[in-house]
């Protein structure tokens, strides 16, 4: 099989297989890269780089083995590459921390996906005003201080509100998973 990217349509079965698997794993890949990089813009770039490299190397991937772990290994490498490009930025983590976060994180997929699932339930437990606040704050490209200014609150106070909401959500997720695990 030709392993080099080709611009010749139509997509063959292998390409389709790749797209299927990639799309199914993209959310997890994004969350994984989020631990390693300082901002969402960096994450978006790294996701794209990862997809290109993964497709290029897809011929080496053994069908039947763990696609996600293979993808995360590529992503880990891409994150370190990005870190080196921004080595002088005061906002990146050290290489050591990135490697620790990546290596340990690769094994947590199942749990983290269960947490995402539980989150839907926990968001429903919040009041409508709290949900709207989160919805506004987590719009792509939005900075918290902008939302704070719109709501007429101090940035520090606003961060406290978000911090409490996040902690409450994680706690709810934990409880939810315990009861589900017991059931």
């Amino acid at each position, binding site marked *: 099989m030709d392993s080099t990217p080709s611009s010749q349509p139509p997509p063959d079965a292998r390409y389709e297989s790749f797209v299927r698997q990639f799309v199914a794993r993209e959310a997890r890949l994004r969350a994984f890269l989020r631990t390693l990089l300082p901002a969402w813009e960096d994450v978006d770039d790294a996701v794209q780089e990862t997809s*290109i490299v993964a497709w290029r190397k897809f011929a080496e991937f053994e069908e039947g083995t763990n696609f996600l772990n293979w993808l995360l290994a590529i992503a880990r490498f891409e994150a370190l590459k990005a870190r080196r490009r921004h080595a002088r930025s005061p906002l990146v983590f050290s290489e050591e921390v990135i490697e620790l976060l990546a290596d340990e994180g690769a094994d947590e997929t199942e749990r983290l996906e269960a*947490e995402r699932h539980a*989150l839907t339930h926990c968001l429903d437990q919040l009041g409508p005003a709290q949900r709207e606040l989160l919805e506004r704050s987590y719009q792509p490209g939005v900075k918290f*201080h902008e939302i704070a200014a719109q709501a007429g609150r101090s940035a520090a106070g606003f961060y406290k509100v978000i911090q409490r909401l996040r902690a409450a959500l994680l706690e709810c997720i934990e409880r939810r998973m315990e009861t589900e695990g017991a059931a």
Partner: protein
Amino acid sequence: MNRERLETLVTRWSGGALSPDETRELDALLRENAEARRLFRRHANLDSALREWADERTANSPWQTIPAPARTPVIRRFWPLAAAAGLMLGALAWFVQSDRGTAVPQPSIAGTTESTSQGCAMLSQTLDANFTGPPLRSGDTLMPGTVRLASGLAQIEFFSGATALIEGGAQIEIVSAWEARVVSGRVRVHVPPAAKGFTLLAPGMKLEDLGTEFALNVEGQTSAVHVFEGEVIAHPSSGEQQSLTQGMSLSRNASGTTQGGATADQFLPVNELQGLVKQREAQRFSAWQDWSKQTRNDPRLIAYYTFKHWNDDRWDRLINNFTEPKRKERAGGAVGARWTQGRWPGKEALEFKRPGDRVRINLDGTYSALTLACWVKVDSVDKKYNSLLLTDGYENGEPHWQIYEDGSLMFSVMYRPADVPRAAKDNQMYYSKPVFTADSLGRWHHLAVTYDNQSGEVVQYFDGREVGREVSKLHQPGRPIVFGPCEIGNWGLPTTGHQFPIRNLNGAIDEFAIYGSVLTAAELQTIFQQGRPE
């Protein structure tokens, strides 16, 4: 591990506000402590899940919550072959197909003409409503735009599920299924859970409904809101948003926002509209009954069916002829067709849906003119010919009255000279202009046709208005009109082993009158006015 401190830092990291010092601090915390790293990964996971959720929620909601910065979708689809975007789309299209489990190629956009509508709400009920501008009737679909109700009451049902009761005079701008603007007047809104997020704009504030019932009164630049039930978030154009719950009210004018200012009794209770509408319907029904009792004495009537359902009819299939004096032999028998509600609650109708549904009648006599008139609710014009009244055999002198596939009314009378072969087209055919369109389907309408065998003129009416007038080229004066065995709502008594064309009406009929004379335009206008549902 200092969890509190870690979470403070993580929140700042999440908001994109981590300073270089804080970055170093977080880096150190994470390096030292595996538990901190685990917590941090959970936060990052939460972060990305929240971002997706917020993006989806906004994409699915009609209102813009933020003065949008350059938004990029969260899931920026990857492009391994970025240049070959078309290829990627091809691949996704293939997925869509295969996911549906069909190998049938999807029709190209150019190859299909699906009817579309920009409607986003429906005028569901009115009471003495006078609209400024184009006249609106209940059942009309409303496009984005302004509704000016000079007087009376109107109920609008938004496609999102929200319902608004408007008291005239009022001016409402419908923005979408999820949003409306009250320029002036009193509006009461009910928002079921499915329509949560429905937004009402008023001078100086935006009201977001969280599944509830509330009312708004706008006079000049002053908006007053009162919450009957549930919760409403009020976003004043300046100042903090406020949550209003049951019994609370808020008013807003040029000088600012104040609590109170509106009370429940300023607004018409919704059940009052229902009550008034019911009362009005009962009045109309009773007025029609009075008129109907008189009209049945009209000597010109051959048969008059009001589709009254007799509870003591053991067979439940009797369609009485109500002409006076009584002509019981002209009573009809329902086949298949089921009882349903007619123009008003309490008024019955027969519904024709299945190929077998029909009412069989047998009318004796020979006539020199006729008028056929009925109240019908057509649900769909889905066959080539859709029956109103057809004689069984279609022999000489027999009329056929049906709705043609293009929505026009079609009347014909058969006259075939003895020396002409059967295959020749010798029936006199008359078409009205199309009257059944998306707008007139599913509502009660009055149809009528008159025919005079001397002048040969056929005049067709829709809701009391003339929609066709014609004399056939084949007309010869003086040929008699006969009925014999015939059917309302269908055609043909199949003989053994023969197939029959399917012509059943898809709809309901709740009054059918057959006269042996031509009724005048004025008379048909009166009949329409006496019987109109509202």
